[in-house]
């Protein structure tokens, strides 16, 4: 491990890999029969554990002033007297389902971490990775079969509410975590806190910032964009010069989050705050669609109708695009390979719209099936506690990609991001700026269905050529209204309880 924050860089990640996962002190078994965590026991255990590890260094780990000290000994790596976080019954094993991370080094790190944790705790650990798009299908199969991985990650499409009756209540694990690392930011609550219970453990957000070519702006006398209108203005100048912006209008994840972020910044949304009432027929939505039609015609690339999730990265990497809105992997992939282009790309704060400044990242949330055998659920909880306490090393291993969702972990200066001027701005991506699908209401199965069917990008697609705002609105109405109607007529998916989300 690096002793000084300055030493903690992306290339330091392999060092982190070598650190075996220790076991924080937690003397009591904390998982009750049936796979549900026993809150009282776990709280007792965690309190003892925190005391054993030393609460002061743990909290210091989250503070900016003591960053160097904490980096030297992150709490997850503190010796903990050899007592596991949760007493794990004999014969436990742990199977984990993850997605293929966009930073492959993080997968290597995670797999080794899990393997080392297993060796330390005498638990046979297996980690499986699938493509992010395959996760919903895989989880549906596991839920239907009533068997599968003991611990798994929801990614991008967070289905905690859909599977609310199939998930372990992780509140006993979350409460001490919130105590140690601060409140969970709104998007973490929206994705994990369901009807008064923590059914997921917010792992991280993949931030989706604007990435812009500063050299092209400078050469053409254009100012650095701060608003979506600025992007339009720059695009109008640069598109005729073959440097159009690149926002996908296709059936891909990027299109889903980018167009939602812009839509919200115009004050428009698919649904109202109650999560049930449609909000399509508003002046804000018409303004947004009018803007989108003009943006597509005058500022955005014509190729975007066929794009997949990596297309905008490739577009930026080809030296053609002047603006994309995607994760920093687009930039990282150029680092060391095309330094000239890399140096000419800046990460910007989220663009402002006429009504708001909002961003839609891709969150990842851990969850445990309630049909997981008791011993394995204990192992999963113990693993999560240890792993999440090692958050700083995890963050470094992801090269600053995995933005934490606990407020105290987002205190500046953050490792990795604070050390490179290019990435400093990423530290500002937190709090209420970050929202998820279903906004301004909660995330619901209906909003998830709208997301999975790419209805918002398709609504923008309807504006192509002679398509009008009315055509786009009609399409969205016809597609979205039956989905919400179906979900809220059924007793099986009750209307979300918005007030239950803690502020």
């Amino acid at each position, binding site marked *: 491990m690096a002793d000084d924050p300055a030493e903690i860089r992306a290339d330091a990640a392999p060092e982190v890999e070598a650190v075996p996962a220790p076991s924080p002190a937690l003397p009591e078994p904390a998982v009750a029969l049936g796979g549900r965590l026993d809150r009282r026991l776990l709280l007792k255990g965690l309190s003892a554990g925190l005391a054993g590890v030393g609460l002061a260094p743990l909290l210091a780990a989250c503070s900016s002033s003591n960053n160097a000290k904490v980096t030297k000994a992150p709490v997850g790596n503190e010796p903990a007297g050899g007592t596991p976080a949760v007493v794990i019954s004999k014969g436990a094993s742990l199977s984990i389902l993850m997605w293929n991370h966009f930073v492959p080094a993080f997968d290597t790190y995670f797999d080794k971490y899990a393997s080392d944790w297993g060796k330390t705790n005498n638990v046979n650990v297996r980690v499986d990775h699938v493509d992010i798009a395959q996760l919903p*299908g895989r989880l549906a199969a596991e839920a239907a079969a009533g068997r599968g991985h003991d611990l798994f990650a929801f990614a991008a499409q967070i289905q905690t509410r859909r599977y*609310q009756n199939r998930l372990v209540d992780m509140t006993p694990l979350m409460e001490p975590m919130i105590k140690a690392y601060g409140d969970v930011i709104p998007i973490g609550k929206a994705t994990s806190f369901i009807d008064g219970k923590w059914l997921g453990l917010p792992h991280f957000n993949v931030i989706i910032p604007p990435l812009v070519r500063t050299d092209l702006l400078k050469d053409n006398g254009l100012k650095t964009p701060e608003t979506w209108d600025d992007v339009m203005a720059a695009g109008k100048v640069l598109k005729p010069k073959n440097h159009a912006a690149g926002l996908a209008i296709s059936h891909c994840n990027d299109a889903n989050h980018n167009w939602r972020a812009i839509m919200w910044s115009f004050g428009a949304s698919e649904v109202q705050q109650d999560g049930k009432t449609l909000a399509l027929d508003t002046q804000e939505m018409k303004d947004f669609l009018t803007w989108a039609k003009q943006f597509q015609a005058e500022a955005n690339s*014509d190729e975007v109708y066929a794009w997949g999730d990596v297309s905008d990265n490739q577009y930026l990497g080809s030296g053609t695009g002047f603006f994309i809105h995607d994760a920093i992997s687009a930039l990282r992939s150029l680092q060391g390979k095309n330094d000239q282009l890399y140096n000419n790309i800046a990460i910007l704060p989220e663009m402002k719209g006429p009504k708001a400044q909002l961003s839609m990242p891709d969150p990842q949330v851990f969850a445990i099936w309630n049909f997981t055998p008791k011993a394995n659920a204990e192992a999963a909880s113990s693993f999560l506690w240890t792993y999440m306490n090692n958050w700083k090393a995890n963050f470094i291993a992801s090269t600053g990609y995995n933005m934490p969702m606990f407020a105290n972990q987002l205190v500046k200066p953050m490792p990795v991001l604070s050390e490179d001027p290019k990435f400093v701005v990423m530290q500002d991506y937190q709090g209420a700026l970050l929202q998820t699908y279903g906004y301004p209401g909660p995330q619901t199965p209906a909003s998830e269905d709208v997301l999975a069917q790419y209805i918002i990008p398709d609504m923008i697609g309807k504006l192509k050529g002679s398509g009008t705002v009315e055509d786009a609105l009609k399409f969205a109405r016809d597609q979205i209204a*039956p989905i919400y109607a179906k979900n809220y007529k059924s007793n099986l*998916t009750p209307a979300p309880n918005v007030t239950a989300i803690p502020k």
Partner: protein
Amino acid sequence: MSLTRTPAAAEAAAVAVAPQREAGRMRRMVRGEAAFGYLLMAPVIIYLALLLLYPLLLSVWFSLTDASTGQPFGSWVGLKNFTDVWSNETFRLALRNSFIFTFGSEIGKAILGTVLAFLLLRRFRGKKVLRALLVLPWTVPVALTTLGWLLLFDPTFSMLNRTTSAIGFPYHPNWLGEPVPAMIAIMMANIWRGFPFSAIILLAGLTSVPPEILESAALDGCGFLRRFHYIIVPMIAPILFIGLLFDLVFSFTDLSVVYLLTRGGPENTTHILPELAYQNGIQGGDLAQGAAISLFMLPVFVVACVIMLRILRRREI
């Protein structure tokens, strides 16, 4: 009345009983054979029941409920899912696309498969190696081959467009970004994958045609097309029909090419039924609607199978 039986009477009685015994033995044997037959059939019946009938019945059940991935045991809603999907524009587009995709692909496969089969009938050096290579598209995993097509059709780096541009061809579409080219693109990928299978089926049939019949027809002045139409096709019709049936089912149910190339885009214009069912039922979590969409394929299969098998049976008679 004497209780003893004379030898003659006993013999007569024995002669009378013998056929009865024989019949009984035969009956037992037949019964035994039937039981043995059923025993031999049992693995297939169990296989069909478990892997085909059970999922089919489950789909029917899902389609009549409001089941979702989170609540697979939904409550009864009758035919609502069917009426809902029928009223959906995207579904109707997917239904239309399924037919275009299937029949378009079949025509392409039939033409290319026939040409390839006749080419492979000829004797030339390296024929076996070439035959093995030609089967590769069909045997290599679809995800791998489709990724190759994705590169060919890539909107930014399309090798296809670069090549056509280099030879001065004026039309360079955004293959996967415009409705018609996107539909052509997915059909091209499907034809490329499937035509070696058509060729092999046809080749198997062609090799079974006695060469002397073709030679005598040629001597009688029959040209290639007439020989093909009046001799070859009727003789290999059973093989052709079975091959066509297989291919129709493969194409109509193939979601991988569409999923990997367009995911139904641009603007839902390349959705086909199996891919839409996967998107809505599994990705979107609406199991009931996904099941209803996929069940729309069932009548098509049943009609196609019945027609083809009837034609086959008539020909055999």
